[in-house]
């Protein structure tokens, strides 16, 4: 789930295209012989998977502590060459070729609320709406 678009798709789609196992939201990675043990951050806590290699992993922020940039590296960064590539050079067709827009709709407008005059009638209405 990258911080630019929050899509939570790139790693998963790549794994599906390659037909490789995936370990997403990795907070700990341990290499074994021909496999990798991945601890994942999931809603319910931590899940550990053992994946045969090759596999696709995506990193969670808890995987590592970012290094400090060193002063010499900061100065070198300015001098690194910036190579511009055109999409066509990489054989990538222009535009979202694999996506087709089926429908675009707004969420339903928020309806007006309803005032009730007693706790009894509130309970009655909630039961009627199937909420209780």
């Amino acid at each position, binding site marked *: 789930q990258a911080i630019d678009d929050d899509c939570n798709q790139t790693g998963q789609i790549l794994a599906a295209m390659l037909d490789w196992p995936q370990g997403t939201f990795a907070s700990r990675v341990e290499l074994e012989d021909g496999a990798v043990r991945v601890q994942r951050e999931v809603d319910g806590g931590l899940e550990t998977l053992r994946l045969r290699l090759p596999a696709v992993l995506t990193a969670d922020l808890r995987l590592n502590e970012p290094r*400090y*940039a*060193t*002063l*010499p590296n*900061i*100065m070198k960064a*300015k001098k690194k060459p910036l190579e511009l590539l055109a999409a066509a050079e990489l054989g990538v067709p222009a535009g979202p070729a694999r996506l087709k827009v089926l429908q675009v709709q707004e969420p339903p407008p928020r309806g007006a609320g309803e005032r009730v005059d007693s706790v009894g009638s509130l309970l009655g209405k909630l039961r009627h709406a199937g909420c209780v």
Partner: protein
Amino acid sequence: AMAWRAAPRAAARLLLGRRRIASCIDPSTGLTEDQKEFQKVALDFAAKEMAPYMAEWDEKEIFPVETMRKAAQLGFGGIYVKPDVGGSGLSRLDTSIIFEALSTGCTSTTAYMSIHNMCVWMIDTFGNEEQRRRFCPSLCSMEKFASYCLTEPGSGSDAASLLTSAQKKGDTYVLNGSKAFISGGGDTDVYVVMCRTGGPGPKGISCLVLEKGMPGLSFGKKEKKVGWNSQPTRAVIFEDCVVPVENRLGAEGQGFSIAMQGLNGGRINIASCSLGAAHASVLLAQEHLTVRKQFGEPLANNQYLQFRLAEMATRLVAARLMVRNAARALQEGREDAAVLCSMAKLFATDECFGICNQALQMHGGYGYLKDYAVQQFVRDIRVHQILEGTNEVMRMIVARNLLQG
């Protein structure tokens, strides 16, 4: 015991968190993209590696060797030293920005690092190729630490009257005398010592590099200080201490000039450390004023305190401009650089002490407790008005420039 750890972490959170609004005291205004990157690394390092420990280092008098070595790995061990011997080759202004940022984490440790940097620069600039290659790489990495030895029990402000003698004997010098108030003394490895090889006055002084372990080199007791407790301060004693001629920086009689040129940069660095402490203190005061309530309101609603805070901020920015202006002049080698460095050191150290002191006052009784970081900034920067040339000597230098220059 957990309480005294909380306050520096609170300061660290403030330093890292307050990026949303461009405030009037933002230290990154007017900087180039590169300088902002240097500042960011230094601020991050200060907040994560220094601020959480500054109280403990002060209370237990710990010289944080491993933390300083981590800083050296980032390039902070020889910031304005040439890259061919391991330095970072940055400008005096870049250096000022970095020390100002590091100082927000621990002023005392940053001040020692600035002294170390000054010593490495002296060897880099005035040493011959053999000396540069022998000493600078291990100093830039902080595998070894350095001390600057000028002051003696009998000569502080009147530095040129120093008495430590260095008698030429064959291809060695034999040193006798002692130095006082040496930062890092006893714990550091390399000593840049100003001593008398010739007649009286500045022209009889030379600069020798000594190493711990040389016979005849010993140290006094560790001094107990009001602040700067994360660096040991000791007398350095020479008793028939034999030093090879190969350890002399520059020519005989050049030592005083080398010492003074080192101090020009040192004065900017010390002033920069004061700026960092003052900046951190203003943030602490700002936070306290919004949180603390009396008479039914946050202190921040009180006009007197609002005006006080505004004055503190204004003086901080003025001091910062003085220091950065002097740094630029020194970098460009301008004729007025030395006197500007003196003015900047005088102004910034005085103003910033006032700012930290006001910040302490704004904390009320809590400001006097060691659980709160503001008192340590006050104690640590008090000495900046005294060392590297007292603020009285700074006035002498400025007056001389006006009346004789």
